[in-house]
């Protein structure tokens, strides 16, 4: 049986991991490669690197980061942030990433998803969806530009559309739950996961191990992503997994 995946996420700016990271045992807590190794040792199934560099130089540095991570790690990883073209995808995938994640660029030009899937295969193309509850429709709307711009697009419909365009996976972030640490958005995750036949990574709201169980069982997620609870050592991938095993959720 396929296992549920635990995916730590690292924000990278100009080649350095940002957002307070509290791994005291590290020589350099800002080094993406060192942090990736720690998570690998804890049993992370996969990693996501989100490039938040605003500059062209920062983007170029990201390619070098990807090369170093790929040289050191034997687990899959995804790179997202600022990928706008097949050329951008090529640079990141050639450097050794397994998947690229498209967000705003996919909303602005959905054909980009198809172009990427045709060129590299669906398994390389993740579409990240930032979704927020909308009272009027009693559903969830898609936001772009890091959650700053509302798009008149239903999140569940958009998920179906990107699947049809050839996306291999969906990284679904609930903007309502993000940062609250009160648990993943189960209703949103379930709605999207049941609407598509590709894997869904739930993101936003992880506060403890129980939240992971809930998103895998009730939320029907295939994988769950978290950043701060791992970075701040509130829990570890190991702890979450041992709890899930006790609860009979299948993990590696």
């Amino acid at each position, binding site marked *: *049986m396929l296992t549920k995946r635990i995916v730590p996420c690292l924000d990278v700016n100009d080649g350095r991991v940002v957002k307070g990271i509290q791994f005291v045992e590290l020589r350099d807590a800002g080094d993406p490669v060192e942090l990736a190794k720690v998570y690998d040792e804890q049993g992370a199934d996969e990693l996501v690197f989100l490039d938040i560099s605003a500059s062209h130089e920062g983007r170029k540095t990201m390619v070098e980061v990807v090369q170093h991570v790929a*040289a050191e790690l*034997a687990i*899959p990883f995804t790179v997202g942030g600022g990928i706008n073209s097949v050329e951008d995808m090529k640079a990141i995938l050639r450097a050794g990433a397994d998947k690229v994640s498209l967000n705003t660029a996919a909303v602005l030009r959905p054909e980009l998803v198809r172009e990427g899937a045709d060129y590299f295969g669906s398994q390389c193309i993740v579409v990240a969806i930032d979704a927020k509850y909308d009272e009027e429709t009693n559903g969830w709307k898609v936001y772009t530009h890091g959650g700053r711009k509302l798009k008149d697009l239903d999140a569940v419909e958009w998920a179906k559309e990107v699947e049809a365009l050839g996306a291999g996976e969906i990284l679904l972030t609930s903007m309502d739950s993000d940062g609250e640490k009160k648990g993943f958005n189960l209703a949103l995750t379930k709605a999207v996961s049941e609407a598509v*036949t590709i894997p869904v990574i739930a993101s936003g709201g992880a506060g403890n191990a129980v939240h992971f169980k809930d998103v895998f069982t009730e939320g029907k997620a295939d994988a769950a992503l978290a950043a701060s609870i791992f970075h701040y050592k509130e829990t570890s991938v190991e702890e979450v997994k041992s709890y899930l095993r006790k609860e009979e959720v299948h993990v*590696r």
Partner: protein
Amino acid sequence: MIGIVDYGMGNLFSVSKALERLNVPYFISDIQEELLSADGLILPGVGAFKDAMGLLETTHLKETILTFAESGKPLLGICLGMQLLFEESKENGTTKGLALLPGEVLRIPKEDREGNAYKVPHMGWNLLRYQKNSTLLEGLTEGYVYFVHSYYVHEGSKDVIVASADYAGVEIPAVVSRDNIYGMQFHPEKSGELGMQLLENFTKRVKERVS
């Protein structure tokens, strides 16, 4: 020396980095003479079967691989590279493969026998179950490896299955071998320690044959 076949559709970087971690000398090439001089060959691959066979044919690397296989030296296909070793695939119509192993490649069904829908691609970590002895499994215990694929080698090729994984009741051939031909459906270079050990066992096999 291990040769990695560069036909334009490989995850060359991750496979080559894995060999570097194992301290195994390798080269990446699309030149017939160079590849034929290798002690072992790795055929990587991501993407669609039809495109891959098309490229192997136009580059004449198909003949190179078949000649290499005949020489008796070890050949390993990874992911799509493993599927290419079989007779044919039903991905986007019917396409003939290298036919070094018996069997055909089909889409993983989207429903199990009870009609429950499940997700394709088969993406993530799944338990590798050993089916028979093979030099590739020597000294290894069963564990998890990382899969990403939507097509699989269908039964009819039972005797070449060395290890398999269960996905919603479908037996997915995961390690295959016959004589000097080996294949892995998952990505050993992305499958943590067990993946590296499997890859190492293949490289040992290459070394043994040379010495």
